[in-house]
């Protein structure tokens, strides 16, 4: 769809705002509607929009599949690591109260960090799922025989 000038310009204009809105939903999730899941999906949708207009190959250069896959694991580790941290500080698993000087702040930081982990994983999963289906030359599976023809279709 790269030949449509309107789509091209609008997509480029919208992408940063989508990411910004995702970050808002992410970090405002503890006060209002939102949180990691929603933010992760919105964040990924910026990449998906870009891939739809500019082609999967270009999008892959911005979000390399290897990075996206690593981020899937990283998000879970952030979440679980927060729990382990509170355990090491002498509390129960995921007891955020111990993460700061007082319980209120601790709970606040805890949920922020955990939700950030959720956001990272959800965004990475969405991007990986999209690339896997859209590319057909799966991220996990590099089948050279079909690669060339499908690259042409993407452009």
């Amino acid at each position, binding site marked *: 769809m790269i030949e449509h000038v309107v789509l091209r310009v609008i997509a480029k204009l919208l992408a940063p705002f989508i990411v910004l809105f995702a970050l808002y939903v992410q970090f405002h999730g503890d006060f209002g509607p939102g949180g990691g899941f929603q933010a992760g999906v919105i964040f990924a949708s910026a990449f998906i929009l870009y891939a739809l207009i500019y082609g999967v190959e270009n999008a892959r250069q911005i979000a390399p599949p290897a990075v996206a*896959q*690593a981020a*899937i*694991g*990283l998000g*879970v*580790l952030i979440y*679980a*690591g927060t*729990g*382990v941290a*509170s*355990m090491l500080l002498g*509390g*129960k*698993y*995921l*007891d*955020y*109260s111990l993460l700061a000087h007082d319980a209120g702040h601790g709970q606040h930081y805890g949920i922020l960090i955990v939700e950030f982990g959720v956001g990272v994983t959800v965004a990475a999963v969405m991007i990986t799922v999209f690339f896997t289906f859209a590319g057909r030359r799966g991220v*996990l*599976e590099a089948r050279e025989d079909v690669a060339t023809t499908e690259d042409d279709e993407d452009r």
Partner: protein
Amino acid sequence: MGEHLPILQVILPLIAAPVCLLVRHAATCWLIATLVSWFCLAIAILLLLQVLDGGAIRYQLGNWVAPWGIEYVVDRLNGFILVIVAAIGAVVAPYALRSVESELPERQIGLFYVMYLLCLAGLLGITITGDAFNVFVFLEISSLSSYALISMGRHRKALHAAYQYLVMGTIGATFFLIGVGLLYMMTGTLNMADLAEQLKPLAGSRIVHAAFGFIVVGMGLKLAVFPLHLWLPNAYAHAPSAVSVFLAGTATKVSLYVVLRFIFTVFGFEFSFVGQPLGPALLVLAVAGIVVCSLVAIYQDNVKRLLAWSSVAQIGYMLLGLSFATTLGLQAGLLHIFNHAIIKAGLFLAMGCVFLRLGSCRLDAIAGVGRQMPWTMMGFLLCGLSLIGVPPTAGFVSKWYLVLAALEKGWWPVAALIVLTSLLAVVYVWKVVEAAWFRDPPGTAGRIGEAPLVMLVPLWIAVGANLWFGLETSGNVDVAKAAAAALMGAVQ
């Protein structure tokens, strides 16, 4: 550290999984998975010893007090199941090294261990949690990872089998969730102990009855109760060998645990067995499952499929024990959960060794393999005897208690049926033994060697367990007795 054991049981594999995803190097992932599996077994054993000495262990996640927060509860029943699951995991993990290497493409091996660890975490989580919704979350973790594991099978049919399981499993999980949702609607709580309290005055409610139906049928799908078992033979037959071992030893057992937990702890004995005809219903399904699936198993020509059908039949024995609705019957059922886990794990371990050397588990392909792989097939034969229920083996002990429980109720025909259907097991085990030892190998076959030691040792650990628990029965029988008494005692 001791107080954190319940949570470590689950988060150890749960954290190891993303670590493996980041590492991706096959041998490193295997090492991580194996060490974590062994740690899990150690934790499970420590927990069981602790609950056998004292009362139940409770652990509040995030320090939120019980009915509001999620709590993990270990008592005699799930302590016992935790040990079964962790033990099978600890045996499968080292075995997987060579088996997976030969059956999966290089780039998938790292991911295999990620999925295996997630599946282990899910199954342990289902067992340990004391929160009804948390059961569903872990159920999904274990199910989704097992769909992926099954689809990794070498044959393309594995994809179809995984898809079939995905559809059936999702329906089961949805039913379970609807049931939990209805309970939440009626009581406003998800904590199992709290649910049990709140449900007592609601026994007459139609919605609670509907919830009971949804939960039992939903878990029945995951458990492969006789008419809901159609996903199981394909899934076990086409999955990679290590996955067949792991799932055969753990997945259905954990589902049965959930059924027991809901029937006895949440809904209560009165509601389940006196208020409605659960006993007779289970009896009919169990008997039908035992007879039909044993007969179908006889006509299979792929040994893994044969074992899978036999698994459905064996689930019937466990349900039979449950349907007696007596302490002795329940004890027999629990004992059979344990014994069947080690029996079927042993049989599938042996078939994995055969598959490594022959690339097939068909009866005509394994002809004469007994002479070329004597240790493997000897292990198969001993586990097979245990499956039939020949005296110095574990299988005999659980059948013995089942017969005792049937006689205690005065159900002579059922006792006779248990003995008669064991003869059907003789037929299908004999088919394999006959092919392996008494037939000549196909002319095209070259000389094949014995399976590598790293696979034989896990197999013979399982064989050894079958013989050990057949002779020295005080350990597992007492635990099963204590768990059964606790379940029945908690409600009478």
